[in-house]
């Protein structure tokens, strides 16, 4: 994946990494942030349309974020090791079309990847906006989550 705004190419795809959804971590996340019965308890989940315990959708997208940031941080360390200054870290104004397409169950491993779909300059000269479409695919090849996000991305120093 590119680092500086100037270098991103439309269509550039990067595999970000994988996250294994352990049952205990799924339940711990749900207890804190999404304590619905089908995220907490196998027996209660049998009464739901899912039929069994499923991860909170917020857990599946938070895991995407972790893989995305790990990738970026790895690149920043590589730049620093070469003596180059990495760009400042930007924030995101938002996401659209976040879709939970299939349930994530205990023991599933989701591999996340991201593709640049658009980029544009903004009035702040040190920054640009990169739009990316990201997907998570489980160990059976099924897409479980996807979203389109916009990230403020630093330009090369001039």
């Amino acid at each position, binding site marked *: 994946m590119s680092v500086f705004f100037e270098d991103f190419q439309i269509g550039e795809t990067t595999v970000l990494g994988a996250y294994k959804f352990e049952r205990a971590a799924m339940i711990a996340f749900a207890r*804190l*942030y*999404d*304590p*619905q019965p*089908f995220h907490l308890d196998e027996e209660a989940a049998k009464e*739901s*349309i*899912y039929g069994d315990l*499923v991860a*909170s*959708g*917020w857990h599946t*997208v*938070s*895991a995407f*974020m*972790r893989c995305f*940031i*790990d990738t970026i*941080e790895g690149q920043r360390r590589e730049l620093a090791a070469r003596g180059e200054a990495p760009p*400042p*870290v*930007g*924030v*995101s*104004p*938002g*996401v*659209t*079309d*976040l*879709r*939970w*397409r299939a349930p994530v169950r205990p023991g599933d491993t989701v591999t996340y990847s991201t593709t640049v779909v658009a980029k544009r300059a903004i009035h702040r000269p040190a920054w640009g906006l990169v739009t990316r479409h990201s997907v998570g695919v489980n160990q059976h090849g099924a897409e479980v989550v996807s*979203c389109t996000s916009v990230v*403020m991305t630093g330009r090369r120093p001039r």
Partner: protein
Amino acid sequence: MDILHFEDFAVGETIEYGATTVTADEIKEFARQFDPQVFHVDEAAALTTMTGGLIASGWHTAAMMMRMSCDHFLNRSSSQGSPGIDEISWAKPVRPGDVLSVRRTTLGARPSKSRPELGLVEFTFDVLNQVGDVVMTQRNTILFRRRTALAEAVG
């Protein structure tokens, strides 16, 4: 208490609920697991970034909103989860000490075509801070079981 079903959500209704105090420890704990960017995990280093100090991960704000919604109404409802989120915008930073609440507006409601026992209710959720600023807005659909379809099925 009666369980809320699809039929119980009135289009056009707006309600407010929740009062979650955001702490620096929780911001950093969430971020260490899921979003370990400098402005979410390190107060001192965050001062030198574009955020000017520690702020919550946007995904943490969404998760705190979800918890308030579970506590207020989803966990006394027939919710069957959500197919996704049409839009999230993070309008303002969430900082330690902020007190967040939710303003929920019901935008629409329709029975599911493919699963007649379910209905889809579309909401916007505005997350507000203690001075009334909207810090996040989310628009999405939640699936609920239908009371009438249940009655028909029972006979």
